[in-house]
């Protein structure tokens, strides 16, 4: 089991951040992702594996400021 934005989500072996975001239907291009407190850059999404029991925050950045 992993936690995405405090929601329980099934753990999948060898799943990358990119694949997880796709599974969660987070389709926005600009997302800030932290796994267990550590930032994962967008350029590392397709290489970073999500470990079991991870706590993941995924915040999409919306234009306007």
């Amino acid at each position, binding site marked *: 089991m992993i936690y995405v934005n405090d929601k329980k989500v099934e753990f999948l072996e060898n799943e990358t951040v990119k694949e997880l975001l796709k599974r969660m239907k987070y389709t926005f291009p*600009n997302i*800030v992702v932290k796994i267990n407190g550590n930032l994962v850059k967008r350029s590392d999404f397709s290489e970073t594996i999500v470990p079991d029991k991870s706590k993941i*925050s995924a915040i999409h950045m*919306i*234009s*306007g*400021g």
Partner: protein
Amino acid sequence: MNNKKNETLRKKLINSSVGIAGAGGLGSNVAISLVRTGIGRLVIVDFDTVEESNLNRQYYFKNQVGKLKVDALKENILRINPKIKIDVFNERLVKGTMHKYFKDVDVIVEALDNAETKTSFIEEVMDKLTEIPIVSASGVTGYGNIDRIKSINMGNLHMIYDKNAKDSDKDILTAPKVALIANWQANIILEILLGEDI
């Protein structure tokens, strides 16, 4: 007002510094709120000029239209506190060097407009200035729906977030919501600088 407590707050803040990336709706309002509270030093970076259309939410005045935002904001800040230390940079933040203006501040505010730039700025600051807390905001458009807005604390990254807001090119920007989120950012900055109680 508890004068003793207020004195403690002023003393702590006079020795504190905040860096602000972007002097639009968020950045200009954060700056004004912080100068009123007694922050000692501000570093502000923006490339833009004040436009008529900014006056519905950004802390500028009609006679400042056409001026550089950093100059106009500095002018407004000094009208509140002429003693504040303030460094302004009329520069566009470019990937790779975005963080360089903010190396010696206590807290950094992400007050940028474009979603891609916002994300790049967070990635770069968190990578290069690992010890400095960053206070960001995502979803400032529209009005109302206040119970939808959340403050999320992710270690050194603090985010004010309205996940249902639309991008600014698809919605309106209003003074109440923009200033509310800017002041929410300023409120978190106080918490970071002062701790829970003084």
